Each structure stands twice: as structure tokens, then as C-alpha cells.
């Protein structure tokens, strides 16, 4: 068995250069052009045996071109199996050596046998395995099979009574990979064009499900127009129609009455959304271009999925498509978005916030969207002034009156406090859902506060207070949403208490577990730590006896200020004036756990900060601003 190493880019270049060589030879030989050097010479009665040599070379270049194009097609298909590799490994065998037309013939012959038999048997699958990454062969296979038979074949594998048992998924995977391979054929044969039929409406659930199932495993990233037409024509156009809730609407139909044999959902609408989730850019395009808004789509999914769960798969798959379409994938989810992604997120968030409860299957999605759009969540927490403070609507482009500038937030849209509260409350069932948002908001808080400190230090501005007030309000909306909706509220409080207590007893430094810092901040108003740390264990007692949460928050603010140069000059660092007892090995402020675990250190720390006006004034003002934001949001919620 011999192998070649081939590069798609290199072979494309080689094919292009061989095509140029062929044209240059033809300029002399005149095989395909009327005008040629040979014709001109003939007119002048000049002959040359040199053309015989050129004819030999021309024949060889034609053959070399076929050979190269064949390997290029195979390389393209293999590249998807070996992503990132500059060269892919290609087995050199009799099939590789086939003329493209011969490979196509082999695919057609296999399809003919499948059509005659009406199903796949083990021998056919064995051959399919050999051909699945051969564009010439698979294009021949599907051109011969035709779009309807292809869809029905896929659907038959999805049905438990297919008779192929546990092999059903493997067979379907091969068919899907083969279709993606066929779509890579640079010179598609007669019959492949018929697959545009996948974009036409059908009322046959087997055909609809089969079409979508064929898109689930192969790599169609190079054929996104085909995917777009298929999901729209087969299911999403129907979902956007007025009769979407009618059981006869194709998007509401299922392959059968129960689970499929291949692990895919039987729900046709869900399978269409699930397809989009595989291609984020396409998901953005398709969901943006529906006849109904993403908000209306959200309403429909929530109505169909319902609680108690009915079409849970629909909510789950729609959620995955939304994550892809809004740029909310990744860990942590990205907070940078295109205008199209942001517009969809706005529709989805405000649509979700219209519902008092959301389908359980989509809660993980709402949590990730909240983390990806954390700037928008915090900005939307702003309680604007006026008689009915905070009682505004959400807007894609209208900034709330008096919205603070210079806070470092860069929201793509402005939610209402009510939408923020409702949306954040929606995913509070389990701590696992809320964790990504808590990590994101803590990170944003730390960076925004640091930036505001630096900017205020330079020009005496008021950004720190604005940041503290904004996050104080956000903390209220979040915390109250959690109290209202969290099924395991007590359990998660205990878990966080444990995390904080661990810091105090084990001295792990000021680095809190992700998310706990923000939690600690929003614990700050509304009670001393001893109200929750009333356990009998030593860790809880240490905290309860020595401090309350407001002081911890105060420490965190001062720590951020010192880190950003508040009170320092080019000549002297602010820590130079601090008592040695509260300084570490390198003159840095001791961690929170060490200072607050020792009453004497705590006293020295507080006295020192109060003696440094630059720190004391800014920390006090920031704390007051936090409380102001917190109270403003409490008032808003109390009125709501």
C-alpha cells in the first residue's frame, strides 16, 4: 500500500498551471481553436514534424490534468478529515488511479443497486465506505439516486423498524458524509443539479426529515447555500408561516411516533434548527432573514415547547441555533459581536423576557447569551431617573436618559431593567447555568473598575462612582432574580459560603473562585455575613466574628485602587505609607483573608486607608454609589 501527501492549495495551483500549458499547446495545435500556428503555417504551405511532438505532449498533459484533478477532488474531501494539516495523506490504489468518469460510473452502479433493492445492505455499505470521500464517485452515486430516494433512504434508517439495528447511525453518517463529498465535485455530473429540490417545500415528513438528516454528519461548510435552501425550504419557511402551530405544518411533524434509531431528534423543526447550529455564520444569516422576527420565532418556540415540556427538542435545538447565530458560543462566550449577531440577540433576549417562565431545555442557552452580552445586561440595569425611574422600554439604539458615559461598557443595545431582571432570572434553576454569567460579570466589573480608576485619577472624573452604581444595580437585578427563580438557592449560597470560608482558613490569597467575587459584592448590601455564615463550623465563625460583607467589598475596592496607582506619585508608592504589618514580602497589600482574619491587622488596615484621603474618599464614594445603584434597583423591583 503506497501513500501520497497532497495539498489542496498546491494541487489547485498545479491544475491551474497545467490548464495554462494545455492552452499554450492548443494555440499551436488548434485542437479546440480555429486560429492556431499550425493553421497559419498550413495556409502558407509550411509543414513541420514538430507538431507530432506537440501532439504527444498535449495528450500527456490532458492525462496529467485528469490525474491531478482526481487527486485534488480526493484531497478536498480528505482535508475535512484532517483539518489543519498542510498536506493530507492519500492512499494510492486502483480507485485513486481511476479516470474521474470511471469513478462516477462506480458510484452510479452502486446507486442503481441501492435503488433496485430499496435499502442498504452490508455489501453496499462496504462499498460506500470506500467511496464516501471520493467526490467523483459520490457525485455519481447521488446523481443516480436522486434527491427523493436519497431523503427516503435516510429516513428509513431513522425509523426503528429499519432492520439495520445498531448500524443505522453509521449508515446514515456514511450517506451524509457522502453527500457532502458529492457536493465538493468540481464538475458535477448530470443529475446532481436535481438536489436543488431539497430547497422546495414538501408535506411528506419522511422526505423532510431525511433531507435534514443528510445534513447532520458530513461537512457542508463549503456548501452553505445548499444548507440554507434545505433548512428554509424543508422546515423553517413553514415554521415562519401563519399556520405554524397546525399539526399538519411540516415543521411541526415528526419522523415517527417516538425516538429515532439514529440518535437524532424526530422533530423536523428541531432538526432544522440543529442544522444551523453547526454553521454559526449561516445561522446568523438564516435567522435574520426569516419572514418573522427572531423575537416572534422565540415566542413560537416557547409556545410549542411549553412547560411542562412538550417539544423539548425544539427548544434545545433552537437554543443551539441562537447561540451560534448570536456569537454566544465558546468558553467563555465571546463578548465581541457583529451588528447582525447583536440584533438577533436583542430580539431573543427581549422575546424571552416577555415570558415569566421559559422552557427548561433552553435555559443553558439563555445563560450563555447573558454571559456573551454581559455589557448589555449591566447597561440595561441602569435605573434612569424620573418619576417612574427604570420604567423604560428596551431599544436597539436609544440610550437611556442620563446613561453614564465613560464606564467602559460598550453595549450594542439598551435593555430595560425589567428585561434584564426577567432574562437573568430565567436561567437560575441550577448553579451550573448561572456560572458563565457570574464569571463574565465579575471579569467585566474588575476591568471596568480598573479603567475607571485610571481615568478618574487622570482627570478627577466621576467614572468610578458610575461604574459602582451600575454594577450595584445589576447585582440587585441578578440577586433578586436568583432569589425569585433559583430552585437550589440555598444550596448555591452554601457552596459560595464554603468558597469564601476556604479563603479565610486556607489562605489561598485574594483570588476568589470565578464568579464568587461578584457574588460577594452583591451580598454586601442587605446583610452581614453572619446572617448567612451562621453555621457552627470554624470557617463560618471566623468570617462571622471578624467582618461583614460590606467591609470585604470595601477591601476589594481599595485593593483595586492601589493596584491602579491611586494615592501613588512618581516619587512614592501609596503602600510606602502603609504599616509593615499589612504588607507582604514585596510591599504589597496583604490578601483579604489575612487582614480580615486578624482583628489587629484589620484595624491597622482601616486606619491606614482612612489616613490616605485619595484612597478613603474614592472608596467611600464608590461604596456609596454601589449602595445607590443597589437601592435604585430595589426600589424599581419593589414597584414593579
Amino acid at each position, binding site marked *: 500500500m503506497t501513500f501520497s501527501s497532497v495539498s489542496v492549495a498546491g494541487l489547485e*495551483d498545479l491544475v491551474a*498551471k497545467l490548464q495554462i*500549458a494545455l492552452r*499554450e499547446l492548443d*494555440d499551436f495545435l488548434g485542437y479546440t481553436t480555429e486560429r492556431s*500556428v499550425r493553421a497559419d*503555417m498550413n495556409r502558407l504551405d509550411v*509543414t513541420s514534424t*514538430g507538431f507530432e511532438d506537440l501532439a504527444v505532449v498535449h495528450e*500527456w498533459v490532458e492525462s496529467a490534468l485528469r490525474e491531478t484533478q482526481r487527486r485534488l477532488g480526493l484531497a478536498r474531501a480528505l482535508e475535512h478529515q484532517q483539518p489543519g494539516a498542510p498536506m493530507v495523506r492519500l492512499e494510492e490504489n486502483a480507485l485513486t488511479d481511476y479516470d474521474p468518469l470511471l469513478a462516477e460510473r462506480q458510484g452510479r452502479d452502486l446507486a442503481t443497486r441501492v435503488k433496485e433493492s430499496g435499502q442498504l445492505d452490508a455489501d453496499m455499505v462496504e462499498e460506500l465506505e470506500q467511496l464516501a470521500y471520493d467526490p467523483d464517485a459520490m457525485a455519481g452515486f447521488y446523481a443516480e439516486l436522486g434527491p427523493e430516494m436519497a431523503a427516503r433512504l435516510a429516513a428509513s434508517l431513522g425509523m426503528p423498524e429499519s432492520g439495520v439495528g445498531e448500524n443505522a447511525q453509521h449508515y446514515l453518517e456514511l450517506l451524509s458524509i457522502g453527500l457532502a463529498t458529492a457536493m465538493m465535485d468540481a464538475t458535477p455530473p448530470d443529475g446532481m443539479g436535481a438536489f436543488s429540490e431539497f430547497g422546495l417545500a414538501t408535506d411528506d415528513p419522511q422526505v423532510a426529515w431525511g433531507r435534514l438528516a443528510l445534513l447532520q454528519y458530513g461537512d457542508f461548510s463549503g456548501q452553505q447555500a445548499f444548507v440554507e435552501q434545505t433548512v428554509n425550504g424543508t422546515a423553517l419557511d413553514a415554521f415562519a408561516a401563519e399556520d405554524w402551530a397546525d399539526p399538519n405544518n411540516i415543521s411541526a411533524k415528526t419522523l415517527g411516533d417516538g425516538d429515532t434509531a439514529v440518535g437524532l431528534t424526530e422533530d423536523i423543526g428541531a432538526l432544522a434548527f440543529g442544522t444551523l447550529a453547526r454553521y454559526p455564520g449561516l445561522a446568523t444569516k438564516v435567522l435574520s432573514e426569516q419572514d418573522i422576527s427572531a423575537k416572534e420565532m422565540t415566542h413560537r418556540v416557547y409556545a410549542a415547547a411549553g412547560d411542562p415540556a412538550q417539544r423539548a427538542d425544539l427548544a434545545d435545538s433552537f437554543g443551539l441555533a441562537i447561540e451560534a447565530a448570536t456569537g454566544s458560543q465558546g468558553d467563555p462566550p465571546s463578548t465581541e459581536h457583529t451588528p447582525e449577531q447583536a440584533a438577533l440577540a436583542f430580539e431573543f433576549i427581549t422575546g424571552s423576557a416577555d415570558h415569566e417562565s421559559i422552557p427548561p431545555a433552553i435555559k443553558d442557552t439563555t445563560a450563555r447569551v447573558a454571559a456573551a452580552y454581559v455589557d448589555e445586561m449591566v447597561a440595561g440595569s441602569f435605573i434612569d431617573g424620573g418619576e417612574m425611574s427604570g420604567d423604560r422600554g428596551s431599544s436597539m439604539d436609544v440610550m437611556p436618559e442620563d446613561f453614564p458615559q465613560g464606564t467602559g461598557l460598550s453595549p450594542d443595545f439598551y435593555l430595560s431593567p425589567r428585561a434584564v431582571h426577567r432574562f437573568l432570572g430565567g436561567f437560575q434553576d441550577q448553579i451550573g447555568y448561572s456560572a458563565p454569567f457570574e464569571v463574565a460579570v465579575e471579569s467585566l466589573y474588575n476591568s471596568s473598575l480598573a479603567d475607571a480608576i485610571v481615568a478618574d485619577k487622570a482627570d478627577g472624573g466621576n467614572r468610578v462612582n458610575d461604574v459602582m452604581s451600575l454594577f450595584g444595580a445589576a447585582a440587585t437585578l441578578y440577586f433578586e432574580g436568583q432569589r425569585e427563580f433559583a430552585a437550589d438557592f440555598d444550596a448555591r449560597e452554601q457552596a459560595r459560603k464554603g468558597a469564601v470560608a476556604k479563603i479565610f482558613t486556607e489562605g489561598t490569597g485574594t483570588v476568589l473562585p470565578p464568579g464568587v467575587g461578584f457574588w460577594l459584592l452583591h451580598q454586601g448590601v442587605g446583610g452581614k455575613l453572619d446572617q448567612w455564615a451562621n453555621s457552627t463550623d470554624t470557617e463560618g465563625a471566623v468570617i462571622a466574628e471578624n467582618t461583614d460583607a460590606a467591609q470585604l467589598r470595601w477591601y476589594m475596592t481599595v485593593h483595586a485602587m492601589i493596584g491602579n496607582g491611586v494615592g501613588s506619585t512618581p516619587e512614592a508608592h501609596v503602600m510606602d505609607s502603609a504599616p509593615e504589618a499589612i504588607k507582604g514580602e514585596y510591599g504589597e497589600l496583604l490578601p483579604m483573608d489575612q487582614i480580615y482574619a486578624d482583628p489587629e491587622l484589620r484595624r491597622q488596615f482601616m486606619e491606614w486607608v482612612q489616613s490616605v484621603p485619595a484612597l478613603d474618599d474614592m472608596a467611600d464614594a464608590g461604596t456609596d454609589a454601589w449602595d445607590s445603584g443597589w437601592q435604585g434597583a430595589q426600589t424599581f423591583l419593589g414597584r414593579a
Partner: protein
Amino acid sequence: MNDTTRADLERLQIQVGRIIGDLKAALDAPLAIMASGEAWTGNRANGFGTSMEIHKDVLRQGADTIDEDIDAAVAAAPAEEAPA
């Protein structure tokens, strides 16, 4: 040589002279790609490259023959008298 004049042959000579170099070099770029090892490597590729080298020589030989035959035709054509 029917109505062919030396001037016709000379025009042919010039026309072919302009493109014969491109013809001779037609396989240079594909050969360079194969030699770079960035498109296709392995035993099969080596055979393909060797075959291309051989055909490049055949191409050059054919092009030279055509060039020489045109030169010979021009040389054999009688010189034309300058118009009075």
C-alpha cells in the same frame, strides 16, 4: 507555394517568434510546483514528475523543430523586389 510571399512568411516568423518561448516554458511552472514538494509528494508523485520532465524535453524539441522549419521556409523564399 501559391500566393505566399516572403513577407507573409516573415510575418509568420515574427508571430511565432513572439510565442514560441512561452510554448517551450509551458511545463516549467508545473515542474516547479512538483519540485517544491508543496503539492504532491511520494513515489507516485516522483513518477509523475519524471514523466513531466521527459515531456518537457519532447516539447522543447517539437518547438525547436517548428521554429527551424519556419526559418527554413523564410530562407527558401525568394527575396522580393523593392517597389519602383
